[in-house]
């Protein structure tokens, strides 16, 4: 219960932190999507309910704080990413860092494509010119940062619980978990 109570504050803290860091390092030109990496991590490490709540909260806070006028866009995208990660985690182990990096790249790519298509079809804004300047560096950044993020959180898990929490079902040995 404490987890659900603290989740909105943690989400606000993370989103504000990534906005501040992006401002420092990239002058606001790029978004440092630590929240997306957190969602992917949740997809690999957490169960459906807490992970889904995390994705929803991260997306919603991101929508509110820095995503612009469309409320719910990143909420939907993050939930989609979480579910994608969750289903992928049933087949691949989170210990293989190159797979994590590749999957994060893929997620960031899907997110960028979704955004591009959304703005193209809904608002008739063609952001094709932003592909090289914004989307590609952002996707690469997510791929690189995900490796560090996963490593740090795995070590933290080891310190907190004495072992990593990915269950047998999540490493491809089991079926679809139904319980939180």
């Amino acid at each position, binding site marked *: 219960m404490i987890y659900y109570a603290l989740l*909105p*504050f943690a989400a*606000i*803290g993370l*989103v*504000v*932190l990534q*906005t*501040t860091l992006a401002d*420092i390092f990239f002058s606001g030109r790029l978004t440092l999507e630590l929240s997306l990496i957190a969602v992917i991590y949740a997809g690999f490490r957490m*169960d*459906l*309910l807490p992970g*889904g*709540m995390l*994705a*929803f909260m991260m*997306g*919603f*806070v991101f*929508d*509110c*704080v820095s995503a*612009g*006028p*469309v*409320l*719910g*866009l990143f*909420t*939907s995208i993050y*939930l989609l990413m979480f*579910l994608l990660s969750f289903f992928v985690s049933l087949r691949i182990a989170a210990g293989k860092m190159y797979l994590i990096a590749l999957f994060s790249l893929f997620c960031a790519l899907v997110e960028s494509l979704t955004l591009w298509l959304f703005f193209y079809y*809904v608002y008739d804004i063609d952001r094709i010119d932003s592909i090289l300047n914004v989307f590609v560096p952002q996707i690469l950044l997510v791929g690189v940062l995900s490796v560090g993020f996963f490593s740090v959180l795995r070590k933290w898990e080891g310190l907190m619980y004495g072992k990593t929490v990915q269950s047998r079902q999540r490493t491809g040995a089991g079926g679809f*978990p*139904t*319980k*939180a």
Partner: protein
Amino acid sequence: MFFKNYRTVIFVGALVVAAIVLLSYSLTRNSGACIVKNLVLEAAAPVQKVFISLVEGVENAWKRYIYLVGLTEENRHLKKEISGLQTELMLYKEGYLESQRLQKLLSLQNEYPFKFIAARVIGREQAALLKSLWIDKGSSSGLASGMAVIAQPGVVGRLTDVSFHTSRVLLLSDENSNVDVLVQRTRAHGIARGAGARGCTVRYISKIDDVKPGDLIMTSGLSNIFPKGLLVGRVSSVDHGDVGLFLQIRVIPFVNFSTLEEILVVAAEQRVAFQGKKPVK
């Protein structure tokens, strides 16, 4: 039973539906503003402030550090520059003073129609028995014993020992020095003899001659060593005394022997006719 088994899936499905509804609502209303969003922004603002102040703190500390490092470097550089400039200034000052001294010597050279040999003072002897200077010119430069030595504004002494590259100048204040002089105002003749720290005394001027303190004493030219008309000194006191035929006259030499750095030697053999018409101040 169904709800219990699929509770998680239903809940996540509800989240997805909520997100889509939120998106649809936002698109149809064409406005992202709502109470929840405002609440989130309200909650995010203090967090943002904390992060910004942290970043600014680190940035300021870093800038201050960089500034201090720069300041230290600049300070070191400026100190070095000051040291260099002080050395340069000292050299310029020295050069300026030397040029002034040489200018004075040159003016002296122009005032008298003699052949002069300039020399630099390289040593001093101010012992009780001997008051002399060492100069850096000797017989190789044409100097000879007995030549007169002058500096601005008057007589310094004469050469006593002349080696190949060095010479000794017997100062006017040395007790062994005797120079034939006359009082400018009354033309009374006498002999100026060195008196050490007290300058010199003029002897053999009769008590009937009129000599007053402040009178100028100059060379008479009779000794064949010093040309006529060179300034020797100024009378400081005149003592008539109770006994004796002559006045006791004390003279303060014009030249300050302790600060001499360059002098002129009068090359006697190249002396030309001297008119002695130089106005004496």
